Each structure stands twice: as C-alpha cells, then as structure tokens.
C-alpha cells in the first residue's frame, strides 16, 4: 500500500480536521472491553472446568472447550446477536476465540447469496484470512529459530 503524497495545503487541512474530530472514549472502551472480554473468558473457564470435572485432564479439556466457545460464537453470529455485542464491547468480543468464530461465520452468511463456491467458499476467510496467514507465518518463523538454536 502506497500512501498518497499530500500537498502542503492538504496536509494543513488534514491536521486541522483531525484535530477537531471527536475521539472514541478510551476509558469507556477499555473498561467495557475488559469486562466483556473477562466474562467470555470466565465462561470459557467454566466450560473447561466442566470437562475436567467429568474426568478429562486439563490438556485434554482444551480442545472441546475451544469447540464449545466457537460453536457459541457462531450461533450468536447466526442469530444476529454477536454484531451487537461487538458494537458494544469492541476488542472485548473480538479477541477471544468467539470473535474468531464471528469473523468466519459473518462473511459466510453474508456471501452465501453468491453461492457456496464463489460466495461462502471464496470469501469465508475474508476477515480471518490475514490473521491465519501471518499467524502461521510467525509460528513457522519462531519454529525455525527454535530449531536453529537447539539443533
């Protein structure tokens, strides 16, 4: 992405306009994100504890817990509730795994009208795609460094 070069007049206007625009209320947003994000994580912990209580080890319970939280995120997206939570909570509902589910189910729903191949299939990872690409690349890089140090 190449940023357009601005003339002096454009720069002056941009600075003036930016200095006057309303700012998001940082305190409120951080507080709400903390509380809602915390609630989602507490719910996840409850699910994890349940799986442990029925005899799984902590390690074994991780997988099914993620599956339950993803299902919940997907379900709330399908019911048209997760976007409202997101509007209210911002990062609080984007960062947990339920937000990841939302980022995949939302485009899948939206582009279903373009068919299962060019719609759902091609565009399901429109939002999550970059996270996956750079997440996997980073994991690969870290793995490589680990291997180089310990070989």
């Amino acid at each position: 992405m190449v940023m357009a070069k601005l003339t002096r007049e454009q720069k002056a206007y941009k600075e003036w306009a930016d200095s006057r625009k309303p700012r998001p209320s940082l305190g409120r947003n951080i507080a709400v994100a903390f509380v809602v994000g915390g609630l989602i994580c507490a719910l996840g912990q409850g699910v994890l504890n349940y799986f442990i209580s029925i005899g799984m080890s902590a390690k074994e319970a991780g997988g099914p817990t993620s599956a339950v939280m993803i299902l919940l995120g997907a379900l709330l997206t399908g019911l048209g509730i997760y976007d409202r939570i997101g509007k209210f909570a911002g990062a609080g509902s984007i960062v947990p795994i339920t937000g990841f589910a939302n980022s995949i189910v939302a485009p899948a729903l939206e582009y279903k009208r373009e068919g299962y191949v060019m719609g759902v299939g091609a565009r399901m990872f429109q939002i999550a795609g970059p996270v996956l690409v750079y997440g996997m690349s980073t994991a690969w890089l870290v793995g490589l460094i680990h291997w180089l140090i310990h070989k």
Partner: protein
Amino acid sequence: MAEKRLGEDTVLFSSFPSIIATATTVGKKEGEGPCAKYFDKVVRDPLYGEGTWEKAESKFLLESVRKALEKSRLTYDQIHFMFSGDLLNQITASNFAARELPIPFYGLFGACSTFTEGLTLGGMAIDGGFAQRVLVGASSHYQAAERQYRYPTELGIQKPPTAQRTVTGAAAVVLGKDGPGPFLTAATIGRVIDMGISDPMNMGSAMAPAAVHTIVQHFKDTGRNPDYYDMIITGDLASVGKVLAEDLMKKEGYDVSDRYTDCGVLIYKPDADTLAGGSGCGCSAVVFSSYFYPLLQEEYRRLLLVSTGALLSPTTYQQGETIPAIAHAVAIERNWPEGEW
C-alpha cells in the same frame, strides 16, 4: 433566449422546471428518526421481502417511483427520462429498478451527491426543451453498502465516532416544465475536490471542503449572499463534517450558522449505531423530498440544496488513495425569481 450560464460553474434555468411531486420509502431506523412522520412509507424489513439487500434496494426505489407518479397523476409514457443513481457497483440498484420501468433511463454515479446531480441534469433536460417531464431518483441501503464498502453485516466491530450510517431509503421526484412550483432556478456544478483525507470512516471531513467550494462558488457566480436563502442544506456531512463546513465558510467570509443544516444530522436520533449521522445517496434525497419539500409551501421561500459525495471505492482506499469529494448545489424556490431572470 436568456443567457443560461452565470460565472464559472453556475447554470440558470429559464423555463420554470418545477418539482411536481416527491415520494420517499425508507427503512426502520430512518422511520424511527426525527423525520419519521414525513416519509411516505416506512419498511421495517431491511430485505423488503426479497432475497438479497441489493434486490431490496431496487424495490425501495421502485416503490418511490410508483408513489411519485401516483401523486403527480402521471403515467409512465408521460415521463420522458429517468435519472437515477446509487452506491452499488455498476449502480445496479438503479439499473435493475429501471429494468421494470418503461422509461428512457440515464444511470448516474455521483456517490451521495447523486440526488442534486440528477436534479441538475433533469432541470437542464427540461430547460433545453428535450423533455417535458423527468423523474429523478436516488437510493441507498445500509446492509448493501456495508457489505460492499466495509464489512459483512454480522461482523462484531466497533466503529469510530466519525463514522456514518448509510441511509436505507429511496426518493423519487417528478420534475415538469409546467407546474405551480417550487422551481429549480439555478444550479452550481461541483468540481472534484480532494483535501487529503484518506479515512473512509471519516467521510464528513473528506466532503466538507467540496461542499464549501461549491457553495462559495455559487455565491460568487450569482452575487448572492447566504441571506438570500432561508436555509442552506448539505447532503451528508453529518455532525463531524457540518462543523468543519461551517468554519470553512467563515474562513471564506460567509457566516451561514443561522441558516445552515445537514440531512445527515437531521435523519437519525443520535445513538451508537448512527454515530456521526446519516450518509448515502438516499440521505439528502429522502430528507429533502419528505421534510423540506412541503416546507417550501409554508415556511421557506428559497433553499439551497447541496448533496455531497465521497468518490471512493474499497479498491482505492485499500491502495492508500485519498478520498476525492464532490458537491452539487441546486437553488429551489417557491416563486419564480423576478428581475434579472
């Protein structure tokens, strides 16, 4: 024939193009706003019984067209041209609505300035003697615009307070050579202005300079002052852009603060969904057609309507381009002006 140009960018209409009828169809959120009681029809289902947002938008437009014809007691064959536009790629909402109509059709794209672009061209077609009656339409749809310009509608994100909500709604206006008024008397055609704003979540700031440029040009070309008009109305600068426009006007030496408003500010009750206010081709189209048009019979004698458009696409902002903007001004008056005309 009278001279039809004035100054650099202004045209004068000389043959009394008149707004014969207007009709509006809007969505639920708009129907809960301050203009609610003025709309002809409020449709609570954003899909309007259709399978896609895009089809729904065409249906909003068609509904307004039919209503406008009904109100003007005209039939399709009496309309010589239709001018209409929207925000969707290849202006399909308008094209697909026109597919259902037996009227010669011009598709317009001026982003959210489309409504006054259409009024200007429609007025010129009548004034040039090429048509007796024309139809001007404009539409937008929140979900259809959201998925094309921004994100899937069900994605849970928080937008900044400078962001605007695309109006779900369509207006249709019938212009005629013979009518009792209000009349289109002059129009100032906007130039594309880019002041370097590149944030698509802050379009008010991008469009304010274009609106001011056109309004100032209008005053220079016509020799009028703000007090010639009872109200100057911009299209969709919303709360962020409106304040900037007012200050920019002051810098140019025109104080409009006592007679200036913006359709993006008027259309919604402010809340977490509407943020800075409304936007979209439908915004100025439905607010003018429902709220201001009847007021031209009562409270206001002269209005300057200035629809404002941000000429960006998802491709251009992803490529780091700034946002060019445009605004077209139309003077609409209850009585035909005397004197120099």
